[in-house]
């Protein structure tokens, strides 16, 4: 009996071993691609035939522009539920989308609506986030951006920037040789353009204050350069620097109390200065006869980075915000200019000459490695989004200046719809510090 039992056990063990040994091993190397998601057209319940705003389109645009997501076309969808309870997960897992958003807008008053959305994981078959946002016609777009922010944050762990703004300069050709320059503020998707200043003389170098309420910029009105700070709400502005020669390249300090600026003086030697906004006192930081310009503050307020050609060609240097000896920061390539630090302080974006083309490059400050993230010939003016996850910059398309966003890893680029004429010098606002 014992003999028979042991024999049987041995046979079973051997059979099982054979079954396991059959596993076929396969290696897969994947490439970074935007994640496929489904944003189902929102449902609508209200007095008018159509909802005030196509919420799904706004959310799709936001997610697509971030470079991390690829919303599938509506035609591919097998079902179009507007309520989470109606979602059939098998219909979505077949399509291979990793997230499904369904939602609905309901009118609850004359100018009162409720925007409701739910985000699902079709493979684990559960809801990731669900929310209801009250809105009026005027705030509906902002509500859609808030929904996009929540969806983005849930899927990536990164704070969304879809409620932020960008400022930029446009130049429109007028009769003859005249041009009309405008300073514009719009939503980060190009909507809601608002002109805050226009001039027949050039406008340059807009810069956001840390509280998003003001813009500093250079104006050439009167055929000379001077620096203004303008309040966005009121439109009031005041001149903060009007010295002989160059007044240029303003940038706010992290606490908003100072500007780093470039002054050239009568002798025309551009140098870095720190201006106290209230007192208008300036403190000189550089004295070299080279061109020292394009100053910008590090997020911790300790250093000022700037462009200098003291070594023969433009390179990026940094100096203690209290003054001292500048140290060189870029060593790769013959042309590195217009430094801008990411808000998280880890990366430095710049204009970099890459084999004859002027492109945007991003350098990891610790690792000091340089990554070229744009592909044009005349790319310039890089600016980080406040979540440090994307950049916006100016490029050329068929001779016209246009704006482009790129993901921080340089992999996904998106053209941004923007105003008329030649568009240049985009700057991304900080996260809004007040609710609008």
């Amino acid at each position: 009996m014992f003999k028979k039992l042991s024999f049987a056990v041995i046979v079973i063990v051997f059979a099982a071993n054979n079954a396991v040994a059959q596993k076929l091993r396969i290696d897969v190397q994947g490439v970074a691609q935007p994640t496929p998601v489904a944003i189902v057209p929102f449902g609508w319940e209200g007095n008018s035939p159509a909802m005030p705003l196509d919420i799904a389109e706004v959310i799709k645009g936001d997610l697509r522009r971030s470079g991390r997501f690829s919303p599938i076309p509506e035609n591919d969808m097998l079902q179009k539920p507007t309520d989470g309870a109606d979602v059939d997960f098998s219909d979505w897992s077949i399509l291979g989308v990793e997230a499904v958003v369904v939602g609905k807008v309901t009118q609850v008053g004359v100018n009162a609506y409720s925007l409701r959305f739910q985000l699902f994981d079709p493979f684990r078959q559960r809801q990731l986030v669900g929310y209801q946002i009250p809105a009026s016609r005027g705030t509906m777009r902002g509500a859609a951006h808030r929904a996009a922010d929540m969806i983005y944050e849930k899927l990536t762990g990164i704070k969304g920037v879809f409620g932020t703004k960008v400022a930029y300069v446009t130049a429109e050709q007028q009769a003859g040789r005249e041009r009309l320059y405008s300073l514009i503020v719009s939503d980060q998707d190009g909507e809601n353009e608002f002109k805050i200043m226009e001039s027949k003389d050039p406008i340059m170098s807009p810069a956001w204050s840390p509280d998003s309420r003001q813009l500093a910029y250079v104006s050439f009105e009167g055929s000379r350069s001077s620096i203004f700070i303008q309040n966005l709400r009121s439109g009031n502005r005041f001149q903060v620097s009007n010295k002989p020669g160059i007044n240029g390249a303003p940038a706010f300090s992290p606490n908003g109390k100072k500007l780093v600026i470039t002054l050239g003086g009568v002798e025309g030697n551009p140098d870095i200065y720190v201006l106290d906004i209230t007192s208008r006192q300036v403190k000189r930081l550089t004295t070299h006869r080279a061109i020292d310009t394009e100053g910008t503050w590090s997020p911790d307020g300790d250093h000022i980075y700037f462009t200098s050609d003291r070594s023969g060609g433009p390179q990026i240097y940094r100096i203690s915000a209290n003054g001292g000896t500048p140290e060189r920061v870029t060593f790769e390539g013959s042309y590195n200019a217009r430094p801008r630090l990411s808000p998280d302080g880890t990366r430095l974006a710049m204009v970099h000459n890459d084999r004859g083309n002027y492109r945007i490059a991003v350098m990891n400050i610790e690792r000091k490695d340089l990554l070229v993230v744009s592909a044009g010939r005349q790319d310039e003016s890089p600016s980080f989004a406040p979540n440090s996850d994307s950049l916006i910059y100016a490029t050329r398309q068929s001779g016209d200046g246009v704006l482009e966003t790129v993901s921080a890893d340089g992999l996904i680029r998106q053209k941004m719809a923007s105003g008329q004429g030649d568009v240049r010098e985009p700057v991304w606002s900080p996260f809004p510090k007040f609710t609008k």
Partner: protein
Amino acid sequence: MARNGNNFVPISMAVVLHVVLLSSMLVAFDFARPTPITPMAIQATLVTEIPEAPPPAVEKQPEPEPVIEEPDLEPDNSEELRKQAEEEKRVQDALIEKDRLEKIRQQEEANRKRREREEAEREKQEEARKERERQEAERKRQEDIQRQRDENERLRKELEAEQRAEEIEDEERRLAANNSPAMAAYQYAISQRIRRNWSVPASASPDTLCVVNVRQLAGGEIIGVNIISCNGDDAVKRSVEAAIHRSSPLPEPSDPDLFSPILELSLRPEQQN
């Protein structure tokens, strides 16, 4: 032949020893048999043995004083003398009898004691024998068990050898198939299908690695996806699951023998230079 001669002496010694051991066991059996009691009945010898055990002096008869009389008169006390002599003889006989009885008593005592000793001895011997029998029985039982085990072991080894031979055959066949271009093509087709369907999220780092067990039916239909290990965040895990589900049904191999119902996929981002 020389070898046999070398072994002969030790073998015979061993045999002799065994015989000795066994016979000693038999002899031991003999010792255990009870001896019958035979009291000693020769009284005459008893008298000569008196000096051994001094009799208990309960009553000491005064020794008759030798009558010291003057020889002149010869009174007729021959009767008295005869009586005295008879008395003395009686006393002596009595003493002798006493002693004899005493001796018998002692002898019986000694016998009794000896019998007890012998009884105890016998019991002890009996116990010893029983013990040896028990041990012998136990030893035999263990031998049986061991024999059984050895038998099982032998069987098992036989079976193992058979299985191993089969396995080697299988393995050789499998290796031939694995290294075959057909297998490589099959693996490549699956790998490419999944790679195309995998959107690696930005949160993946060069070290990200996910190992997934996938069950498929004969036509390539995926019926089970199980993430064994994955050092990426939720976005990475979601992307891996989605990539695999999207790839169903998987491509089929050119040779059905190459099909495997279980796949172990290792997914990692393509390494940039």
